[in-house]
């Protein structure tokens, strides 16, 4: 069937902010989808609240709405745009749920919007666990024993039937939110209650535990003509019990025989047919009993998913693109395989390599949360690595994670106490892999490790071979039986083929990495670059997508065009996410337009940058010195771009420069000056710019004397950190002592930075671009939260709200001075603080910042593209960016925090960044834009009801106006004793409510009963900590807006007031501004 002519305009719903379980893989799929639809000549209307996405770049849609993903807003867009069809399967669970709501409310019917890609019945059948179970019964497929409960009593009955351990999963949630394993009755009831509360339909699935079974996923595609293909099989290294998003996974499946695999394949085809997914991709999960091969169906996602993004990158088959084309009527045999260009897309990719995905965790950010993996996803990012065998891919993957691993190194000493080691092996956690090594080194048998962990012996066997190889070589080196000179090339090659990094081998031989590398090159042990081609070389491949390995033949053929290497940002993590990938993609687009051949290097399968058609060549590789140098030596680029990928490429800058690699843009010396406290301090002084008093110390004594000199409170942190890791505001010497003890390794290599903390200061971020002569500010962002909250966790506004013109002028002047003296060529971000009319520079980063996408979307100028052209030799004048665009509307960025995934973690904002993503609200006033941003962050401001206010004494004076404003909007005010007394005195109508420990019903009861719609709670100090934690935790659980700062409270009430007066302006970006 050719493409449909009865539809012209298609609405695509994105997935919103990056959260755990739903990350930039949906930008990847959405971007591919939008491109595919536009290519077919359809008019694309896109809505997504996340500005840091490529898909929301105006060129990827005809109408691009950066608006909150709520039923009302999307309904308004539908009313305005009248699309013929809605494609709901590209934007994750968010889009799917929203689509179901739109359908239930009759909006799709009212405006005659047809669903393409999936129908309501199919979505319901796949998503509703009860319906799904019935469907599986119909086709004779087994699921784990279990049933559904709608209340605690039913749950308890099922508990008897299912036994322990039992899995409890709430229905209709994202990323398995709320899925838990209970080993006893107490846990069971706790989790069941939690699950019932968290399921939007109060339904939990209680199931027999199949913990320890092998877990597999199949990526399936179907078209209108009922052709079905399996794109990829994925096997989990960690057996059932660990969420697949948190598990190390491999592709293709490695431990199934043909018969076993074909059985799962046939089942997957039956499932997609029975569920009735008409067109597009689905992900189906199976568990296989390792004892007898019995298999059960776990679940199905009737849409593109994290796994489909991984499968696309693992195979080269662009699932989202094909899904979009199938949705508009094509059949699989009518579409071409991009990579071979000759054969049809109706086939099953075959791999001749091994892919390993490794999740990236950030437990260190969430104190109080145990590092334990279970059925609720907790990882914030992932890496993928490709090798010719499992060992190579695993070790490459480990060094891609950027946790400082050189490979599968010995992180845990085999001297570890046996009982503790067994415990660490038994309970899955983020570093279990390293305990596995300790176990092998300690002499545990493969069989016993298998019994403890449930990990398939095949994987363990491979790991054991790595340990044996390494130990044997270590032994020989120790006995002086071999040294680097006598190490035979063939053996060297074997180690490289098993994925050992130069660093690991250098460590074994006790020589520097650079010498080892030279020896390796001298011995002719060189990597080759093989193509990912979907067909194991059966057909000629035209898509240049490569990985390195140690074989005989390289397939990369350099062209004679000028090449630029762009180093990506590696795995997503808190502090370094999609924003940097966004910049890398823009660099590639801009440089390709200028006629360069771009070479992308990255290890993150979720991203747009690792889509093979974003750059001329894609190298899916770890971003380490070794791997990057291998590529640079192969490619011989004109220049390398390091300023877009966050810390990942920056860490390599000096080493690259030492090796004569041409770094484009701002010279590495400037990056160093900006990051080195002393050098930077000197520069600032020279320029006559103010900076908060500060110092650097190497021991507690140092730090103490500096702190007392500059006066408390002080901000302390270890140097060279990203996203404010281990950053803290310290109010007295005692806390400083604690901090030094708990957080910092005292050593000359780990200096501690101390800054005067500017309490109550306003923070301002500036993103600018400079060509070395001229500097143009793109956006000045005023933070809503005051200084002390990490800039990455603070909401902010363009234009500024309350900054006086002279201050803005000073900022402009300082920015230009700093840019010039740091010889900035490209992007630069400066953080300023304004306290009592005085401006201070907090930090200068001569590189892309997290806010570049937000600024670009706000002002309508793609800053990263501008910067790329500058780096390639153009001037700002030549690219036509000469002054800060003035905008007549407001843009507010708000962040999204992952607390709901980390029960037990305190939710108060501080200097440590913990947000995973961001949203943007655009409207004609600041207040409305703020209100939209809150709505988009899924904490909609209420228009009426009750506000709970509890503020500290310092904030009491500021609360007057705010309370009065709430009263004007007919809000009832509830307050605890102190605030109650204060407001009463000010003649503001207020009712008292108990604190948690004062009796019942108390404030938390009121929140749970729906008697409070918004919470304003500024921290009262130690005495109230318990109360405040309970309040904030409840607010997170019930998605109530919980505001912890006065400025945010002010913004909120203004927003509420304006929302009550006038409607939102709902307008596509294309009408806000025009791109070049």
């Amino acid at each position, binding site marked *: 069937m050719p493409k449909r002519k009865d539809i012209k305009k298609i609405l695509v719903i994105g997935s919103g902010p990056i959260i755990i379980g739903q990350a930039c893989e949906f930008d990847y799929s959405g971007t591919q989808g939008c491109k595919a639809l536009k290519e077919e000549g359809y008019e694309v209307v896109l809505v997504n609240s996340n500005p840091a996405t490529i898909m929301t770049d105006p060129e990827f849609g005809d109408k691009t709405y950066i608006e909150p993903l709520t039923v009302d807003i999307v309904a308004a867009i539908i009313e305005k745009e009248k699309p013929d069809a809605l494609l709901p399967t590209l934007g994750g669970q968010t889009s799917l749920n929203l689509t179901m709501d739109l359908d239930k409310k009759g909006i799709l019917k009212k405006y005659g919007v047809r669903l393409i890609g999936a129908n309501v019945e199919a979505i319901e059948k796949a998503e509703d666990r009860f319906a799904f179970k019935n469907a599986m019964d119909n086709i004779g497929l087994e699921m784990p024993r279990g049933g559904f409960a709608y209340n605690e009593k039913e749950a308890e009955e099922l508990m008897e039937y299912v036994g322990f351990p039992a899995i409890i999963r709430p229905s209709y949630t994202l990323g398995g939110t709320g899925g838990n394993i209970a080993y006893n009755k107490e846990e069971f009831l706790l989790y069941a209650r939690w699950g019932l509360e968290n399921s939007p339909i109060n339904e939990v699935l209680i199931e027999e535990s199949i913990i320890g079974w092998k877990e597999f996923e199949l990526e399936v595609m179907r078209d209108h*003509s009922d*052709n079905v*293909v*399996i794109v990829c099989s994925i096997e989990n290294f960690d057996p059932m019990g660990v969420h697949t998003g948190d598990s190390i996974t491999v592709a*293709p499946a*490695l*431990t*199934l*025989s*043909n*018969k*076993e695999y*074909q*059985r799962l*394949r*046939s089942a997957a*085809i*039956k499932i997609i047919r029975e569920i009735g997914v008409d067109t597009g991709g689905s992900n189906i999960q199976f568990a296989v009993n*390792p*004892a*007898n*091969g019995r298999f059960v169906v776990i679940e199905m996602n009737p849409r593109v998913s994290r796994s489909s993004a991984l499968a696309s990158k693992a195979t080269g088959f662009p699932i989202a693109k094909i899904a979009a084309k199938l949705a508009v009527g094509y059949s*699989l*045999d009518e579409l071409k395989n991009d990579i071979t260009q*000759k*054969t*049809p897309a*109706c*086939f*099953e*990719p*075959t*791999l*001749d*390599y*091994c892919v390993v995905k490794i999740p990236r965790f950030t437990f260190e950010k969430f104190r109080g949360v145990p590092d334990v993996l279970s059925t609720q996803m907790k990882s914030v990012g992932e890496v993928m690595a490709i090798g*010719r*065998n499992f060992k190579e891919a695993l070790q490459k993957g480990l060094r891609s994670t950027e946790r400082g691993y050189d490979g599968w190194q010995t992180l845990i000493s085999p001297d570890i106490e046996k009982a503790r080691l067994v415990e660490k092996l038994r309970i899955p956690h983020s570093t279990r892999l390293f305990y596995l090594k300790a176990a092998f080194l300690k002499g545990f048998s*493969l*069989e016993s490790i298998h019994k403890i962990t449930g990990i*398939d*012996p*095949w994987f*363990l*066997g*491979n790991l*054991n071979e790595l340990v044996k190889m390494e130990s044997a070589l270590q032994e020989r080196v120790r006995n002086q039986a071999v040294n680097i000179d006598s190490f*035979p090339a*063939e053996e060297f090659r074997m180690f490289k083929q098993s994925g050992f990094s130069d660093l690991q081998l250098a460590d074994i031989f006790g020589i520097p990495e650079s010498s080892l590398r030279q020896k390796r090159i001298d011995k002719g042990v060189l990597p080759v670059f*093989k193509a990912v081609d979907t*067909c*194991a*070389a*059966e*057909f*000629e491949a035209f898509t240049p997508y490569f990985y390195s390995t140690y*074989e*005989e*033949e390289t*397939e990369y053929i350099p062209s004679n065009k000028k090449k630029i290497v762009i180093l990506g940002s590696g795995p997503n993590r808190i502090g370094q996410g999609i924003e940097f990938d966004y910049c890398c993609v823009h660099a590639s687009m801009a440089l390709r337009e200028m006629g360069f051949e771009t070479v992308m290097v990255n290890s993150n399968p979720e991203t747009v940058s690792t889509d093979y058609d974003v750059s001329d060549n894609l190298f899916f590789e770890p971003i380490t010195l070794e791997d990057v140098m291998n590529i640079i030596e192969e490619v011989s680029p004109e220049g390398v771009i390091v300023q877009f990928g966050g810390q990942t490429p920056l860490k390599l800058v000096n080493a690259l420069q030492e090796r004569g690699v041409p770094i484009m843009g701002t010279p590495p010396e400037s990056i160093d000056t900006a990051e080195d406290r002393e050098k930077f301090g000197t520069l600032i002084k020279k320029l006559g710019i103010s900076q908060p008093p500060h110092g650097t110390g190497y021991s507690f004594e140092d730090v103490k004397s500096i702190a007392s000199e500059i006066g408390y409170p002080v901000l302390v942190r270890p140097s060279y950190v990203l996203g404010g890791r281990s950053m803290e505001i310290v109010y007295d010497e005692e806390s400083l002592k604690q901090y030094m003890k708990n957080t910092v390794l005292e050593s000359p290599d780990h200096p501690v930075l101390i800054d005067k903390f500017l309490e109550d200061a306003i923070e301002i971020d500036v993103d600018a671009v400079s060509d070395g002569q001229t500097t143009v500010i793109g956006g000045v962002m005023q933070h809503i939260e005051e200084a002390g909250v990490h800039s990455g966790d603070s909401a902010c506004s363009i234009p500024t709200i309350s900054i006086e013109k002279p201050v803005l002028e000073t900022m402009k002047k300082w920015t230009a001075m700093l840019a010039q003296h740091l010889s900035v060529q490209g992007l630069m971000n400066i953080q300023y603080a304004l306290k009592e009319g005085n401006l201070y520079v907090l930090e200068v980063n001569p590189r892309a910042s997290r806010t570049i996408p937000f600024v670009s979307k706000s002002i309508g100028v793609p800053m990263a593209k501008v910067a790329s052209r500058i780096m390639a030799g153009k001037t700002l004048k030549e690219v036509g960016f000469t002054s800060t665009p003035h905008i007549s509307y407001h843009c507010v960025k708000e962040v999204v925090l992952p607390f709901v995934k980390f029960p037990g973690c305190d939710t108060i904002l501080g200097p440590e960044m913990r947000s995973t993503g961001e949203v943007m609200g655009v409207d004609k006033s600041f207040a409305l834009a703020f209100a939209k941003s809150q709505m988009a962050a899924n904490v909609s401001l209420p228009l009426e009801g009750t506000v709970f206010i509890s503020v500290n004494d310092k904030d009491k004076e500021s609360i007057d106006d705010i309370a009065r404003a709430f009263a004007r909007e007919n809000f009832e005010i509830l307050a605890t004793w102190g605030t109650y007394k204060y407001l009463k005195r000010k003649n503001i109508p207020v009712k008292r409510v108990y604190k948690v420990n004062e009796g019942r019903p108390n404030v938390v009861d009121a929140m749970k009963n729906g008697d409070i719609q918004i919470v304003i709670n500024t921290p009262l100090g130690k005495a109230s900590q318990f109360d405040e934690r309970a309040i904030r935790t409840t607010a997170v659980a019930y998605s109530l807006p919980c505001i912890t700062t006065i400025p945010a409270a002010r913004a909120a009430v203004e927003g509420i007031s304006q929302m009550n007066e006038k409607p939102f302006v709902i307008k596509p970006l294309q009408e806000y501004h025009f791109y070049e």
Partner: protein
Amino acid sequence: MSQAILLLKDGTAFYGKPCGMRGEVAGEVVFNTGMMGYQEILTDPSYAGQLVTLTYPMIGNYGVSYLDNESRGVFCSGLIIREMHSTFGGHWKSQEELSDFLQKNKVVGIQGIDTRRLVRHIREHGSMPGIISHSDTDVKSLLARLESFPSMEERDLVSEVSTPAIYEYEETIDRDYVDFPVLEEKDKVPGIAVYDYGTKYCILQYLRTIARKVVVFPARTPLREVMKYHPSGVFLSNGPGDPSSIPYARQTVEQLLRDYPELPLFGICLGHQLLGLALGGKTYKLTFGHHGINQPIRNETTGKVEITSENHNYAVDFDSICHKAEKTHVNLNDGTLEGIRVKNRPVFSIQFHPEASTGPNDSNYLFFDFHSMIKGV
């Protein structure tokens, strides 16, 4: 450290390490792109005379289970892989490690070579004879031996793999692994005669699932011998080599078509090519054949695409038989003929492997079609 060589007839050499039995072996070098199913490939008689390259780089992960053998032994001449793996005691069904299985079955192999380079070479230059040696790495002497090695066209490999004696086959397919309609004994057809040119057990299992009796005959059995069993249908099996190198088989099929026009006939792979020749058609050699489990085939009757398992170097030229047969299946990768039905006769044949093993089971309905054809419905 290299102790093994693979030398192609054009002089291209690959150095690796031995695997399987020590020795030297020559054959036509082909590759299979399936990611699993090595045991089925090794025991598929169609690979007789060939050195099979497996493109998936890790082989042996789940061991060997005797139930998965596709014939009474291993018929491919040699095995070429990137890396031999052990199960580490891992797979519940495994009875033997692959490396031991190779030893036991006297398969000479080579491992540790850049198999992807080899595949790209064959893709460019076509499949060609090669020699694996563990004892001699001298290119000149190996080339000399390859020179005297008979080409595929000259060899009657079928006689080497076909059953030496008539036997009855009793196993049906294992429904734990395969979906297929369940037939009561009474609903099955009475009996099917199989011409064994190198059949796989899996085909016989399907046939036994639709017939009460399956009798397997050596390839050279005269037709009158077969007819003594009064089969309700005749099946022409898959098998190795060039169809034109076994004129006796073509003559048998010609005789069948001439003397038993009403007798239902079904052929797979070599069986399909023999039918093509018997209809007066031509066959030709493909550059490097189809060997894999992801070949997209369009069923021209339903318009649907089936993902299939294939293993052949020769194809039937449809134009040469278009007046006698309809095209029922076509390969979407290169448009080659994949299935025919003879006009006005209960006769059809398929180039690919509907029994899969190894590969997807999308097309096993064809066995049921044969059942319906015999039943006359």
